């Protein structure tokens, strides 16, 4: 078990190393840096000074080694877009915004999704089931920025009951959370329905029915417990998914989160910020996957990870 976890962690470290090298090389192989001559004509001496300040005049491998050494100490450099801050500081300021939005989203999307799934499964092949299934297809298919625009047109433009964007008040969460939440909600509903229908025919459910438990007791005490297991697999990836999902939604509703800053970094070719964000996302994503797998094993003792792993 410990060996399995250590192996996975080593794998994550290797992946991060490769990701960082590839991004580093990609970003430096291409002409047109942040101090582009065309946009920002500078005297040669001033340019040399700036390049020296950011260490851009050193050979590539040395730049990389310096970067990684500092990164291991929590220093990802200075973002070009905001030279008074550090990349770590900027991420620490913007990530909680995205994180909070993500948590609010999941907090309403998961229970509602589960509820819809239970409703559909217990009334299989009725109009309720068909409606829920169709709506979940819509929720999974329509892109979140489309939903965001529709919400904005309805609530902010037509009915004028919500502002078109901004951040800081509770009502600023409503439209972003709905646009982000429909997909996880639909996914949860779909999985809950499928797994409830699967365990419906299981022996232990029949036994529970046979010993005289009511349908509701069987549903909540026996079926749900096992039906919820697959949810773990879809829940884990939803967390990092919310980081990328927020890219569009944060841009639309002018939310000062990580997604919006990532887009700004792309526009400005802010290498340190891009690199820092990508490494952070890769790390979070890999760790979440590891935890998901471990959790799966804890919840379902039939799953043995260490044997399957190669």
């Amino acid at each position: 078990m410990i060996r399995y976890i250590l192996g996975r962690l080593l794998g994550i470290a290797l992946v991060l190393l490769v990701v960082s090298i590839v991004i580093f090389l990609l970003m430096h192989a291409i002409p047109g840096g942040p101090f582009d001559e065309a946009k920002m004509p500078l005297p040669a001496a001033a340019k040399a000074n700036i390049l020296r300040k950011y260490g851009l005049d050193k050979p590539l491998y040395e730049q990389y080694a310096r970067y990684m050494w500092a990164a291991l100490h929590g220093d990802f450099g200075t973002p070009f877009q905001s030279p008074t801050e550090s990349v770590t500081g900027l991420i620490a300021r913007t990530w909680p915004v995205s994180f909070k939005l993500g948590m609010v989203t999941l907090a309403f999307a998961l229970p509602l999704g589960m509820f819809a799934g239970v409703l559909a499964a217990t009334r299989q092949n009725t109009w309720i089931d068909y409606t829920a299934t169709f709506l979940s297809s819509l929720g999974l298919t329509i892109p979140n920025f489309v939903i965001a625009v529709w919400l904005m047109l309805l609530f902010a433009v037509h009915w004028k009951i919500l502002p078109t964007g901004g951040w800081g008040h509770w009502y600023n969460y409503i439209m972003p959370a709905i646009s982000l939440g429909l997909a996880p909600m639909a996914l949860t509903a779909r999985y809950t329905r499928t797994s409830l229908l699967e365990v419906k025919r299981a022996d232990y459910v029949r036994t529970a029915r046979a010993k005289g438990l009511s349908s509701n007791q069987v549903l909540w005490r026996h079926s749900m417990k096992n039906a919820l297991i697959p949810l773990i697999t879809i829940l884990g990836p939803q967390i990092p998914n919310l980081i990328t999902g927020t890219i569009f939604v944060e841009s639309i509703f002018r939310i000062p989160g990580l997604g919006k800053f990532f887009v700004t970094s792309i526009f400005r070719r802010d290498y340190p910020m891009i690199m820092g964000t990508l490494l952070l996302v890769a790390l979070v994503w890999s760790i979440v996957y590891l935890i998901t797998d471990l959790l799966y094993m804890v919840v379902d003792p039939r799953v043995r990870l260490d044997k399957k792993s190669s």
Partner: protein
Amino acid sequence: MSATTIHPEETPTMRTNLRHRSLLSDALRRFSHNKLAMFGLTIVALLVFAAIFANLIAPFPYDEANVTEALQFPSGAHWMGTDEVGRDVYSRIIYGARISLLVGLSSQLIALMIGVPLGLAAGLMGGKVDWLVMRLVEVMTSLPALMIALLLIAIFGGGLVNVIVAIGLVAWLDACRLLRGQLLSLRERDFVLAARTIGVRNRRIAVRHLLPNAIAPLIVAITIGVPTAIFTEAGLSFLGLGVNDPVPSWGKMVGDALPYMRVYWYLGVFPTLAIALTMLGFTFMGDGLRDAFDTAGSK
């Protein structure tokens, strides 16, 4: 499954098979009985029609700006109104079908050109090659596809071609993984064992027996990959990191409309409807195809 193995010399028998119950006719029947799938097919057909005949259907050229007619609400002359520089929104939506289909199909083509050889190599050769390919896949999946695409755009710049390439470069993973998985499971099937027993060589087994059986799931994967690509293009262009200005991209139309939407609501409504319908069409069609070919999962 072995019934789908198509040998050129067997074509006549295939025809009679089709008339009876071949996998293909079964799949087609299942597909045509699936209402959602047929709905999807209808939308996709309309989209293809609009894309091919855009210059005949659209009342105006997509890039004809007429500042005196800027920001006009929908009317008889401009069914969906005009945008901030006076271009006809309806015409741009029609031409936008071309861009969406172009991006969706060509990025999937790139994905196939990368994913199929890698998946083949991993699934057929196994061993070190497989290990290497799977590690590459692992590195790629450690980051969200959208972020990798954004990174590529940051480095190589936007524009239609770069967007297509960037989407293709992140979309090959599915094809690769799927093909590898298919090959690994097919290798263990009885008909492959039978072929091996009568002395068929490895290369022939791969080409004649493994590949034809892996193609149906691959086609389904592409169909499901197309809307993802269209969505990504729309998203990138929406952010202003995708195609450049005169190109009529639905995503860009939405992004450009954001500052005007408070008053000129129609600028937001029509392009988003186009995106949503296209996504639904392709997804329903793809799901329908998957269900139709999935013999194990059928009721």
